[in-house]
């Protein structure tokens, strides 16, 4: 079993090395093959772990501890070097501060015999996402980079594969010091990936990502320091033993939660994730969906049994809920397709952390469902964004006007992606529904009332956003005279179709999926499974039911019927022009971009900063 866990980290690295060592255009096919191998290999390993005996506690060899310490210093010195090289004040100072804190931690860290790897179902769940969605993105990246820059393709794909290994490692370590090292490694990975194109904007955005994420690193180190000071704790499992104690010192947990907020690109630290869009699209796909930002809800989920019901949890609910609405509002003002997606990621990450900090079994279930479906859908949407960019040269909403006339497949997939984030039968909706109903139980707490308001308004704002984009895409000049599918390269189809299928099938069989696959994870996170029952397609929760016929009915309406719309022709009816008051006009229909909302952007950010500080100060118990 230990070997399987180790191979989950090592296999991607070996594959990455193989890809890296095969440069040039000649080996393109071979590299694609190697990248493809990662999908079956990692999925099989994850399958073995999922079916194995969990949780798994693995003692790491002593040399590894030393190696991690050395690696930490190496990493931080590299950050320092980058800061000096690009004359970036913040990067330099933060790297120095981290070096100082790390040294301090190493000086006072107690010896502990707690195993350094802790693989439970939550880790396995993250493995599952990384090893399917992540590898599909890598496969997609091979084709994408072939169209962009074949010479540097090996480098790019190798970094992505290596990143998957790092992510796997990050979600299975127990030692917080190691977690810090891996947290900063993901920062490094995002830094390298964002500056991949090496133009001025890329480097600027990469440095921004670097300094913002270093704040997260500092928060982890501070959390660790206070953890050692108050309890002598250095491992996650030790913190978990605190759950149920009447009074606990929240400072270490507060700092860890803050690091999650930073990694999860919550406002005011959302700009680094927005900056990631200058990189090639697979970077956005992998940062937004399978890896990197998912560390944030993972961390909150890890801590949720301890922070459940505390002031910290309530403040987290309000902060993340505010971000859920605020990011959605700001997304309305954007014209760039990838930026819209980025804002909606920030927004939905807020929802994930909100539900995770609620901490009851139903809420955790909702959070996990959200993580799973969001990873799949966001990967799909970013891949489609890449397809639009490469095949149709469309980056802005204005460019995707009337795309449905040229690219029915892309439009259909994108619409399914967008609809699955708001509309009724899809997984993300189901988790939102469960979260609202769960929050209704605790309405005497202001935080939960806030969460309901945030969920209701945020959801509807996202619906507005997505339908705006769908509407622009489906605008047409006239009839389909001949129905023609666009030619999408096979690799693109190979990496997107499974995701679409998962979204659809997973949403139809949502009851079974939740009961059989997600509920064991809930049990691993907080000890008790959520009280849900699957009866056929019907999902029965403690307070309500989602009937199978409702799911099927919604799918018939949403999927089958719009696809039918391509083939329905009312041949016997007259055709006419649009009503324009009788004027003869050259029509050029734009989109409404809600520029009025830009006026509130400073207020949203200021409020987010205030809430952020509130979370740290009050929630972390710094008063």
């Amino acid at each position: 079993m230990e070997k399987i866990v180790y191979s989950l980290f090592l296999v991607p690295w070996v594959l990455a090395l193989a890809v890296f060592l095969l440069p040039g255009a000649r080996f393109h096919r071979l590299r694609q093959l190697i990248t493809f191998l990662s999908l079956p290999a990692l999925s099989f390993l994850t399958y073995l772990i999922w079916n194995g005996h969990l949780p798994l506690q693995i003692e790491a060899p002593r040399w590894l501890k030393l190696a991690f310490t050395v690696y930490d210093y190496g990493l931080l010195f590299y950050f320092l070097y980058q800061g000096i090289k690009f004359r970036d004040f913040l990067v330099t100072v933060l790297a120095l501060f981290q070096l100082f804190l790390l040294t301090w931690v190493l000086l006072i860290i107690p010896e502990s015999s707690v195993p350094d790897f802790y693989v439970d179902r939550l880790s396995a769940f993250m493995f599952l996402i990384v090893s399917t969605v992540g590898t599909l993105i890598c496969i997609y990246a091979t084709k994408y980079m072939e169209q962009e820059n074949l010479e540097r393709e090996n480098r790019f794909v190798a970094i992505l594969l290596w990143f998957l290994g790092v992510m796997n490692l990050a979600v299975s370590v127990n030692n917080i010091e190691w977690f810090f090292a891996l947290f900063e490694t993901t920062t490094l990975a995002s830094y390298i990936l964002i500056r991949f194109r090496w133009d001025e904007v890329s480097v600027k955005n990469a440095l921004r990502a670097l300094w913002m994420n270093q704040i997260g690193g500092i928060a982890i180190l501070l959390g660790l320091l206070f953890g050692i000071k108050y309890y002598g704790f250095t491992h996650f499992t030790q913190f978990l033993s605190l759950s149920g104690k009447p009074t606990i010192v929240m400072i270490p947990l507060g700092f860890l939660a803050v690091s999650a907020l930073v990694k999860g690109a919550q406002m005011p630290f959302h700009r680094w994730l927005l900056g990631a869009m200058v990189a090639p699209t697979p970077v956005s796909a992998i940062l937004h969906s399978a890896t990197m930002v998912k560390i944030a809800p993972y961390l909150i989920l890890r801590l949720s049994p301890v922070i459940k019901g505390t002031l910290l949890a309530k403040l987290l609910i309000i902060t993340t809920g505010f971000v859920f609405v605020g990011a959605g509002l700001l997304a309305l003002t954007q014209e760039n397709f990838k930026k819209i997606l980025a804002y909606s990621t920030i927004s939905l990450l807020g929802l994930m952390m909100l539900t995770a900090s609620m901490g009851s079994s139903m809420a955790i279930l909702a959070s996990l469902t959200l993580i799973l479906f969001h990873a799949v859908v966001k990967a799909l949407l970013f891949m489609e964004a890449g397809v639009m960019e490469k095949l149709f040269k469309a980056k802005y909403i204005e460019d995707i006007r009337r795309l449905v006339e040229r690219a029915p497949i892309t439009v259909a997939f994108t619409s399914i992606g967008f609809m699955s984030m708001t509309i009724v039968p899809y997984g993300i909706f189901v988790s939102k529904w469960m979260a609202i109903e769960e929050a209704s139980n605790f309405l005497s707490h202001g935080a939960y009332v806030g969460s309901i308001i945030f969920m209701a308004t945020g959801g509807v704002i996202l619906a507005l956003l997505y339908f705006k984009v769908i509407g622009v895409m489906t605008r047409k000049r006239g009839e389909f005279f001949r129905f023609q599918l666009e030619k999408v390269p096979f690799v693109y189809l190979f990496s997107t179709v499974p995701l679409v299928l998962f979204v659809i099938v997973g949403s139809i069989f949502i009851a079974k999926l939740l009961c059989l696959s997600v509920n064991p994870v809930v049990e691993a996170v907080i000890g008790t499974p959520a009280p849900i029952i699957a009866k056929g397609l019907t999902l029965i929760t403690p307070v309500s039911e989602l009937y199978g016929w409702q799911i099927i009915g919604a799918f018939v309406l949403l999927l089958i019927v719009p696809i039918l719309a391509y083939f329905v022709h009312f041949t016997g009816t007259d055709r006419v022009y649009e009503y324009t008051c009788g004027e003869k006009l050259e029509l050029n229909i734009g989109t409404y971009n809600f520029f009025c909302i830009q006026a509130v952007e400073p207020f949203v950010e200021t409020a987010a900063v205030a809430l952020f500080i509130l979370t740290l100060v009050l929630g972390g118990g710094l008063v």
Partner: protein
Amino acid sequence: MSYWTAFILTLFSPVIGGFIYGLERIVRARMQGRVGPPLLQPFYDFFKLMDKRSIIIHSFHAFMGIMYLIGTWFALFVLLSGGDLLIAIFFHVLSLAFLVVGGFSVRSPYSVIGAMRELLHMVAYEPLYVLSAAALYLVTGTFQVSGILHSKHVPLIYLPLFFTAVLFSLPAILKKSPFDTAEAHQEIIGGPEIEYSGKFYEAVYTAKWIEYVYAFFFIFLFAGGNHILGALLIIFAFFFFNLLDNVTARVNFRQMVAFHWYILIPLAVINLMLIALWRS
């Protein structure tokens, strides 16, 4: 409510909605000192439209009009069949999606503006309805519509502010003055429905009658198990919103969203919090 009752009610909901609409036209006329059309006027319109020559922009657009009817009908069935209230509310969003996508799918300025405003209508009233589902849960202890209808409590007594808020947002869901920005007949000539004609307009026209039934059933839920009170509430709401329709001018969409978000939702939330605190 059993599935069969719900099914039959849903099946006849266009007829019920048509009568409500006919009555509304009479009441509105009387309030303006006019005689008004006969009660069956909506049905005359219906049959007349059946006989018109249909002209369409393109098939996708026309098809979305029909889908709007089917979607609304299905949403009503979900509400009446006694299932989860929240799910029924979100099904309503789904049905609106067809109207919106249809409105966006033609290159007509009025239609596109109207579709965007339709979405803003949704932004305005949807949070209130989600919150009211939570509030009804708080009072009756269930999210199931059938449970609420058989509840011993009368939610209206516990949720007076909430009921007021829902009452004021009724014009937004039915697109009546002062919140009729999405249709705005004098301004954008019907918004998303402008390009439909003949049988296809008939579908959109009928779907709006079904929305009447949907909205008034929502009012009915505020009486809980007391169905006579529910009927009275519907009658009151009907006259109230006709009065509102007649005495107010159209506000713009910002004022509409602002009114819902800054006045109605806080009103509802105050009620919600007080009742939750009292109960705990």
